[in-house]
């Protein structure tokens, strides 16, 4: 696969809520095979941009495309069907389901057994369940969560739930993976495990975007970093370029000279 053609792109994305411009005509290209970081202060518009990419919000202006195909007007569910998957800033797991079952939902879009299989012990439904369980168990094992597979989310600490959320996002082998603050609430060793996993995931076909406040994580795993402030990109480049950018320094270290 050619990395350049499989990019997720946005052109001139503008979003406003009741007159307040949240995103101001953003142009962006997230390339396959790279991990792209999206950083910026709170309220900069990072999650809003995510929501536009996944279809939860529809921007007033601008086009979003993946691999050259326009995604405009597609629902989140339809985008999920195209392999665009996200994790949530606030852990969004069902408390009725075990950890394993929550992760199984991540592969649901690849399965299509009909409603009869849901109520009757038909072979296709059984095979589907076994297949989904196997995949989910694999993802949990990768993230070191195999022991918690049969627990309910209630019984686990927040850091582990965050990882379950990520397991659910990666288990379906997505083409585009959008992670919203994956390291929030994780302790140091959990963050290290997460970085390891994300590096392992980096492959030729996968577009990976990470919104994160943990600068160490972003600087060490991201190939390219976009810095946002007030709904605009302030800077873009490799970790070193961004670190040296005067605008970025001003945003992050305060603006005494204004």
């Amino acid at each position, binding site marked *: 696969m050619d990395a350049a053609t499989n990019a997720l792109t946005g052109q001139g994305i503008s979003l406003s809520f009741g007159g307040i411009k949240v995103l101001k005509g953003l142009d962006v290209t997230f390339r396959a095979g790279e991990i792209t970081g999206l950083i910026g202060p709170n309220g900069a518009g990072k999650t809003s941009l995510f929501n536009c990419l996944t279809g*939860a919000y529809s921007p007033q202006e601008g086009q979003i495309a993946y691999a050259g195909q326009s995604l405009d007007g597609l629902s989140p569910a339809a985008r999920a069907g195209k392999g665009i998957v996200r994790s949530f800033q606030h852990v969004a797991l069902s408390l009725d389901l075990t950890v394993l079952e929550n992760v199984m939902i991540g592969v649901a879009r690849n399965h299509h057994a009909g409603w009869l299989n849901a109520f009757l012990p038909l072979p296709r439904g059984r095979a589907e369940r076994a297949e989904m369980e196997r995949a989910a168990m694999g993802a949990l094992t990768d993230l070191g969560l195999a022991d918690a597979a049969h627990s309910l989310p209630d019984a686990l600490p927040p850091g582990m739930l965050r990882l379950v959320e990520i397991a659910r996002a990666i288990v379906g082998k997505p083409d585009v993976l959008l992670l919203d603050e994956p390291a929030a609430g994780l302790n140091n060793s959990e963050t290290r495990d997460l970085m390891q996993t994300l590096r392992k995931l980096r492959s030729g076909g996968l577009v990976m975007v990470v919104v994160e406040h943990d600068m160490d994580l972003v600087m060490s795993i991201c190939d390219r970093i976009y810095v946002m402030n007030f709904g605009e990109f302030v800077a873009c480049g490799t970790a070193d370029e961004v670190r040296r950018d005067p605008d970025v320094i001003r945003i992050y270290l305060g603006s005494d000279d204004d």
Partner: protein
Amino acid sequence: MSDILRDLFPLVWSGMITGCLYALGALGLVMIFKCSRVVNFSHGNVAGFAAFLIYGFSSGVLLELSWGAAVLLTIIAIIAIAFLSYAVVSPLVFESDLTATIATLGIGLIAQGATLLIFGADIVSLDLPVPRFSTAVLGLRITGYDLTVLAVAVVTIGALFFVIDFTKLGIAFRAISENPFAAEVCGLNLRSVHLFAWIVAAILGVVGALLIVPTTFLSVTTVAAFMLQAFAAAVIGGFASLPGALVGGILVGVLMNLFTFYVSPEYSSTFLLGLIMLALNIFPNGILARVEGFRV
């Protein structure tokens, strides 16, 4: 053509009169919903119980009081019931409004059972001491009952809006309806405002029940059935808007009247169902819990 017009005006007029009563019921539902997001399904049954209490206090079944004293005593009893009901529901209100709403169904069932236990399943009649006269204005027959209903509705609703607009409790009520969290941070007591709404609603229910009963007989289900139109009125008005409840009540009164006369008297509940579904889908403003822009 002229026949249709000749029927139309009296139909609209009498529809407006019943509509005022639906509005009284709907206002009570909206008061409670606005501040606590709970739909009070016990409203009709409690109001029906109140009507029976007035009957019981004035007819010699329980006591032999004058009509005015019976009403006063009933209102005191109803306030006590509202207080009790809210005491039962209040811990649930802060947890889940849907659970609290189911709990009001329980209260309604108890009120219905209590009515049956005390007064039996018989039909009784309860009259209003209103002047019996009727006059014709532009071909409309207007009775003393009509004018009483209109006057009581105007005075009651006027008083309600005055209380909400100008008294301290009313202002707290509005603040909490707008934003309960902010209002609580500002030191307003949610519980006392909720209780205020429950008591006002209960009194509105008594007034509505008193006025509706003379048009029919009083049985266990009369007032509860009447309150179902009040539900429709509240839904059409947006459920969270007091003026909306007023408009909705009159609209339901008039439309039901026209429907039963011109189309079919047998399908009035089905018509009501259609009306509610239509209102919920076409005028979702203030009705939909969340239209768009949810946070994830």
